[in-house]
């Protein structure tokens, strides 16, 4: 299994990004019900691993950070979920 995606919040972030071109940091924090500091640390790990791309800009003079899933992150997610499902299948 992918150790990075064993964290529920990181797995949730990747799942949120799966069907989206990009999602803003504040929206991810709201969707995952995570604090800014906690989510920021988890997203930094995903960015470092190349699973997620980070884009910083300004909107209405406020900083806006957006995230998008990379092909590598998409492949890792698919493989990880398949392994979770096989684990569940084996447990039945």
């Amino acid at each position, binding site marked *: *299994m992918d*150790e*990075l995606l*064993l964290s*529920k919040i990181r*797995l*949730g972030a990747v*799942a*949120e990004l*799966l*069907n*989206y*071109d*990009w*999602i*803003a940091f*504040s*929206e991810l924090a709201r*969707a995952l019900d995570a604090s800014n500091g906690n989510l920021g640390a988890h997203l930094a790990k995903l960015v470092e691993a190349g699973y997620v791309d980070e884009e910083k800009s300004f*909107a*209405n003079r406020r900083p*806006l950070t957006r995230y998008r899933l990379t092909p590598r992150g998409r492949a890792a997610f698919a493989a990880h*979920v398949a392994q*979770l*499902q096989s*684990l*569940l299948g084996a*447990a039945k």
Partner: protein
Amino acid sequence: MNVQPIGASEARDHIEMVDRILAESHQRLCTGGEYFIVWGLAAALITVTFQLVDTARIPAGALWAVPFVLALSALFSVARGYATRRVLQRSSLVQREFFNVLWLTLGLAFVANVAAFRLFPGIASAAVWNLAEAVVLLYIGMHGNRRAQIAGVVVVASLVAANFAPQDVAGYVLAAGMLAGYAGFGLSELLVGD
């Protein structure tokens, strides 16, 4: 990388969370009704102007209004798109695909009007716009928007009706389709929303 095994109950918990997130993914196209109203009105106005000039009801000089109407509509679209992008919190993959279809379709219609005006003179150019609008609406309809499906059918029906209408009213029929189908859809999006 060290692998930390997890138990079946935790794996189930993770799978259920993923399923819930994916089920809640909002795949409906957020089309922005105001674009459809502006472009539906612009297209109908231009078509009616062509028809009025064609039947000598107004002087040919009125056609100079066409580039201004197009420029104003394009300016509105760019400004509105820029403003929306600044406040948007997420953008779906299907939304990106929709914009690709939108620009490709309307771009090709624009090329047909500007660079192939001998092949599509007068009302024929309006029919090309009508067809492009129908493609856009039916594409949105394919993603589950029933109002867009109906509006697309209305636009296509106006195209067929214009084909069999007398030549001096064909433009009005096409314009009616643009108003009822394209601008009407935009209005319904604004009124009903998500």
